[in-house]
């Protein structure tokens, strides 16, 4: 069950403020500071997902990915097994909205995904990767670490 239940109107312009903020932090405080804020968001804001992953339960992570990408109108596919969740996002909703607004996409934009996902997995038996396949197209993978499968 999702810790943060969201099911009403969306304010997609927040993607613009996120985009501006990524640039602002990286340019004024460095990329490492930006990564730390994003990791902390993954670990502490999504504590419920993090704690379940630590206990070996990926159910909330799966629900989170499915629900929030669906709500944003993304084109994506999810493939799930006991030890792996693979999500291919064919058109990132954040990038799509930024393009609609005519705003340049931050070069740090995909760190949102890679660092928040890494924060969710930090200190748990899970690890994450993000493969950028093209503009707005990525494959996010959450995989149970090999040593933990035995």
């Amino acid at each position, binding site marked *: 069950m999702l810790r*943060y239940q969201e099911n009403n109107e969306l304010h997609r312009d927040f*993607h613009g403020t*996120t985009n501006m903020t990524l640039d602002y932090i990286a340019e*004024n405080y460095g990329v490492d500071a930006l990564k730390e*804020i994003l990791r*902390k*968001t993954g670990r502490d804001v999504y*504590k419920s997902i993090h704690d379940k992953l630590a206990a070996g339960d990926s159910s909330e992570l799966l629900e989170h990915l499915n629900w929030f990408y669906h709500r944003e109108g993304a084109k994506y596919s999810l493939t799930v097994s006991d030890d792996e969740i693979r999500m291919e996002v064919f058109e990132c909703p954040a990038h799509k909205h930024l393009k609609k607004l005519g705003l340049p996409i931050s070069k740090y934009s995909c760190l949102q995904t890679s660092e928040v996902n890494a924060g969710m997995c930090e200190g748990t038996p899970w690890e994450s990767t993000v493969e950028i396949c093209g503009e707005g197209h990525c494959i996010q993978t959450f995989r149970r670490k090999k040593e933990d499968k035995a």
Partner: protein
Amino acid sequence: MIPSDHFVRFYNEVFKFLDAQGGLAKYYQTISAHQEFHCLKAFSENGLQGVYDYYQKIYKEENCVGHTILKGHELELYMGKCPSLSKALDNDAGACPKYCMHCPGWTQPLYTKAGLFQIYDLMGLDNPQCCEWIFDDIEAARAKYRKLLEDHKKEELLINFEP
């Protein structure tokens, strides 16, 4: 992607980081400059009606509970339950104690640039309620400010004009 639903909780982490660095005020100016993209033309050209129209969209998209009343030279924006602070408070990472300050932080420079006058009552930084009054006439703003001072302390009201 951080879902737009969860932007507020990311923003809250940014505020915590910047507060520790003493960097909130400069960031508010940057947000304000960014928001000019969305608001400045409408606020400058259409005045209070432009602000009213913008907040009709915001109240709907951000699921605000409150009201907007436009009458003469005054626009009242009352937030009975701020969805932004509510999310920051409903948050396993905990709310930044200065979370509310970003709102006057970005709106005040923008209204000033648009030639509008603002009175802001935050009603407490841990309370998801606030009220602001915006004017297109300095004397109307001053009269409202004097009236509000009858039952508010001076430090409770943030303004962008000489009273």
